[in-house]
């Protein structure tokens, strides 16, 4: 007799995706069980020690705006923080923090442990159960047997390694890099997950049985060293910002002004490269032992040396793994070379001459899916109630994983509540771009977020994530009424102030000219609005205060929005127009019942691609490679025709 436990949602994996997914579901009132191979690996950061960075910082802010946990947790556990690209436009400012890895993981575990409706369970999930598996097990499923052949599979539970069944209505798979993983250090291959953790294996068979094929990706990580053995006098210090900006909108900025830990910069040299070149035949990638596809944005030092042979040095950043450990992370030198080669090559780097390696650099291969098999809600097309998130979907990065986990969690809950899924548009959020790219494109390597992937990035800034997304978090139920009202008021204040600044005109009076002169700005020839003055490169909202005696006292975040919106108005308006065009296509839904074989005139390639991807809107269809504008027009007319008949 099978022992079975009743719940609502099962989350498989407790990495960054799993944590967000489980928190979202349990916070929305659903009984949730989160399974992990080892409770000590909850929210583990097995690769780099940072959260945020270019475009990833945007994701963290968006997660926060929607009611996720990542931003709050890193605000509590960071040891260094830096706003990147501050000399560039506001769209590419990005916050990056160095995390105290152990603290981050510990703090997240506490949050999970204390979350109502959430149970943490250390176990390996070995099977995914649909109504067909439990036919004779419960009355609710019995009626299904009659029409089993035509019926779509629906998740009803999972089985774990002890044989126990957890009955549930939704499952979210977040296995990260654990599924069938193997780690390679030269000739030494171990069948483990990241950081020596036990890997999972059984789920592969379950996926096969459900008709969801898997594929193999790889990634890599550099060595960890004993920081006491490094000579920092040969490196350049990389401090954090003097004033730290928190990630979360709920964090009091005063709480993040802590004592920070520096990073260090050094470089590889020809000697390093020579050692690598001489030993290339011993690298599993170049020797052909690794089958998985690796990411180009995170190349191993071997790849850098081979593909960019004209560069005689590469950057190496030494980053602390935490405040209370001597371990440091050797950023920029990930590798899968054998241990002896690693020992030699690291020691050629200035400052690393006497380094002692704690953990070797390694490459890791793992099973994941092609996210083309998902809907934009992150539910699989093949099985109702089965959601997937994180690195399992072919992405990379903690932030990308967390973002998907949050959306999958909200959408699992929405399904259980009978609501429409939350689908963020490319014009609304980096998360929208991330998921649309994963689901709609043919990705051949782990997908990393980049600001250049966001076509409307001028609108999707890290400074306005709350204005863009709080309402969705509120509608989902993860943002309180108070938080939401705060954003509504903020929006109103911004609007009022912009209107006022456009109206208030100042004349060419002597007093004004004098102020302008003191600010290093040209005198006025005729009267003009304050808004026009703010647009002058040498002036700003703050600097024009003297010319604007009636200015209301506004908070820093409101003033920031006012300034950005006035200063970049021309560019922002142009992007808004493009968004209007874009959204027209996005709003043209393609119904589920469409039969592409019935659409005459489609070119064969387009027909195949459309059948494969089953896009949910004309906009999504137009982004599939191999679907031409003419195909889209044909499709539009077909839908028009059907509508006319209906």
């Amino acid at each position, binding site marked *: 007799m099978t022992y079975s436990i009743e719940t609502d949602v099962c989350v498989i994996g407790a990495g960054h995706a799993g944590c967000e997914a489980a928190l979202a579901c349990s916070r929305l009132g659903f009984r949730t069980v989160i399974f992990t191979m080892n409770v000590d690996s909850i929210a583990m950061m097995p690769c780099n020690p940072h959260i945020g960075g270019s*475009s990833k910082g945007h994701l963290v802010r968006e997660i926060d705006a929607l009611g996720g946990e990542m931003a709050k947790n890193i605000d509590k556990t960071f040891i260094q923080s830096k706003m990147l690209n501050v000399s560039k436009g506001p769209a590419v400012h990005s916050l990056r923090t160095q995390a105290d890895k152990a603290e981050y993981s510990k703090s997240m575990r506490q949050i999970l442990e204390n979350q109502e409706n959430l149970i943490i369970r250390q176990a390996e999930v070995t099977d995914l159960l649909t109504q067909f598996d439990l036919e004779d097990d419960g009355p609710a499923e019995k009626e299904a047997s009659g029409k089993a052949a035509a019926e779509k599979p629906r998740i009803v539970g999972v089985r774990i390694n002890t044989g126990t069944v957890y009955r549930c209505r939704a499952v979210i798979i977040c296995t990260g890099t654990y599924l069938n993983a193997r780690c390679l250090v030269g000739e030494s291959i171990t069948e483990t997950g990241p950081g020596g953790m036990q890997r999972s294996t059984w789920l592969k068979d379950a996926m096969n049985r459900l008709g969801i094929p898997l594929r193999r990706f790889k990634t890599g990580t550099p060595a960890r060293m004993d920081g006491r053995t490094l000579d920092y006098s040969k490196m350049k210090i990389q401090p954090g910002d003097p004033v730290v900006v928190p990630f979360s909108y709920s964090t009091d900025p005063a709480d993040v002004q802590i004592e920070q830990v520096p990073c260090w910069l050094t470089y590889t040299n020809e000697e390093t490269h020579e050692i690598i070149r001489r030993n290339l035949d011993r690298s599993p990638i170049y020797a052909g032992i690794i089958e998985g596809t690796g990411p180009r944005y995170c190349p191993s030092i071997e790849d850098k040396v081979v593909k960019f042979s004209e560069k005689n040095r590469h950057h190496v950043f030494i980053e602390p793994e935490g405040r209370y450990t001597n371990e440091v992370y050797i950023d920029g030198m990930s590798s899968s070379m054998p241990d002896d080669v690693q020992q030699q090559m690291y020691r050629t780097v200035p400052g690393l001459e006497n380094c002692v390696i704690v953990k070797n650099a390694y490459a890791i291969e793992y099973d994941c899916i092609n996210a083309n098999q998902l809907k934009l809600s992150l539910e699989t097309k093949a099985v109702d109630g089965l959601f997937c998130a994180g690195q399992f979907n072919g992405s990379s990065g903690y932030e990308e994983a967390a973002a998907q986990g949050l959306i999958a969690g909200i959408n699992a809950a929405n399904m259980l509540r009978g609501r429409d899924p939350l689908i963020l548009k490319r014009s609304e959020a980096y998360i929208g771009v991330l998921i649309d790219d994963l689901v709609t494109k043919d990705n051949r390597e782990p997908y990393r977020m980049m600001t250049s992937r966001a076509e409307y990035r001028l609108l999707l800034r890290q400074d306005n994530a709350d204005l863009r997304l709080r309402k969705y978090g509120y509608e989902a139920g993860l943002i309180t009424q108070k938080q939401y009202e705060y954003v509504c008021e903020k929006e109103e204040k911004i609007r009022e102030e912009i209107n006022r600044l456009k109206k208030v005109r100042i004349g060419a009076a002597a007093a004004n000219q004098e102020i302008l002169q003191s600010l290093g700005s040209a005198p006025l020839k005729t009267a003009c609005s304050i808004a026009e003055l703010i647009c002058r490169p040498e002036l700003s909202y703050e600097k024009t205060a003297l010319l604007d005696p009636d200015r209301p006292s506004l908070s820093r975040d409101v003033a920031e929005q006012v300034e950005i919106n006035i200063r970049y108005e021309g560019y922002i308006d142009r992007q808004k127009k493009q968004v209007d065009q874009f959204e027209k296509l996005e709003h043209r839904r393609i119904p589920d019942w469409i039969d592409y074989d019935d659409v005459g005139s489609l070119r064969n390639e387009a027909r195949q691609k459309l059948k494969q991807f089953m896009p949910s809107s004309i906009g999504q269809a137009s982004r599939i490679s191999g679907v031409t504008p003419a195909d889209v027009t044909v499709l539009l007319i077909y839908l028009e025709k059907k509508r006319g008949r209906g």
Partner: protein
Amino acid sequence: MNQLYPDNIRVDRAQNDTIAAIATASAAAGIGIVRVSGPDAIGICEKFYENARGIHDLKEHASNTISYGFIADEDGNRMDEVMVSLFRAPHSYTTEDTVEINSHGGRYLLDRILELVLRGGARLAEPGEFTKRAFLGGRIDLSRAEAVMDLISSQNDFAHKTALAQLSGRVSEKVRDLRSSILYEMAFIESAIDDPDTYASDLEGYPDKLDGICGQLLDEMESLLEIGEKGAVLKEGIRTAIIGRPNAGKSSLLNYLAGNERAIVTEIAGTTRDTLEESVRIGSVQLCLTDTAGIRDTEDRVEKIGIERARAAVNQSELVLYLIDASEGITREDRDIALFLKQWKKDIPSVRRCIILLNKSDLPPVTDTDSVHSFFTDADAVLSCSLRTGEGADELGRKIEEMYRAGELQQQNEVMLTSARHREAVREACGSLSLVRQSIALGMSEDFFAIDLMNAYASLGRITGEAVEDDLVEEIFSKFCMGK
């Protein structure tokens, strides 16, 4: 289709804009029609249409009328005598306000009229778009939807094919060059933004550099347009490149061909300002020679072969005359050239020909025609000669004539950007690059440049039919070493 501005969005542009296109199929027809449809159709056409007394009165014309008059450009110069039909909504094919300009002019004039209308505020219709509007306006009933879809599909294929046919290899090469320059700059900016720890310092002084690059690209695009405007500065002749290692005898061959009694030499300033082309007649065959020899003489005294420079000339040619020094034999550089030529021929095998000249037959040879043939199997002919003594040189002329008569060599008229669609795309790209320069002048930061660079890139891509896809991300990874 992910980057800044997806091209596909053009498909479903607002129904309320005004579209225009040449509605008659072929240039051979006696009368051609430019059709303009949409809410501004009448207003736009009124700007350019005047009646016999020179009055712009189109707005007062009644629906379903046809009138005699003239088309004049913005400066009031009359371009053509026309008949103009006017249909007010909903009494037209598309159910929108529609104007049809009937001209006796050939393709050239029709194109000029279409361009006027586009400059006046219409946009170029997509293939099948008039029909699509007729359908969406309820003019065509649902039972014919299938036919409409077929029509759009086939018209699109046709438009694509004709657009490609109108693109000479030379123009598409040029457009690809422009695009790859733009793409590189975008990737440069993006890599610096994405990985500021490594690349941020590279941006010092970059805006000035980019301003220069944009200026240069604008010059090149404007000269493309200019040549297009003139309709057809037809470059008569078979495009011919002379290549070979230094001292193989390239200059001698040029002098020989140019100095030949039967040759008429003229100089035509090239489309790109730094090349000089010479038109040479050999018997009944006109050759348009690209002078790669000159480039070498001024700069590349070093032993390095000017393969990069020769490459550009070769890519634009139908015929390559490849000189090998018989007294030195086949060198490593020759192997590089051979590999390159093999690929070049493979790209368009139907029109590309290569003749190898084994020069300096008067000196003690280290190789002969047979071994050259086996070394370079793609050669259409291998001839032995001495350009110094003249021995065997006439054989080249005879061979070229023979190939020409056999239809092996085809004279391709150089028609640059004759299609209004292409010119519109280049003009859009110019507009975008001007906006980049404006942003630079305003002191904006680099990430703002990327927006308009991407627009320029997408516009030019419409000429060669290349979508934006993931080009930028690909370029970033292939040209810049990303990732810490």
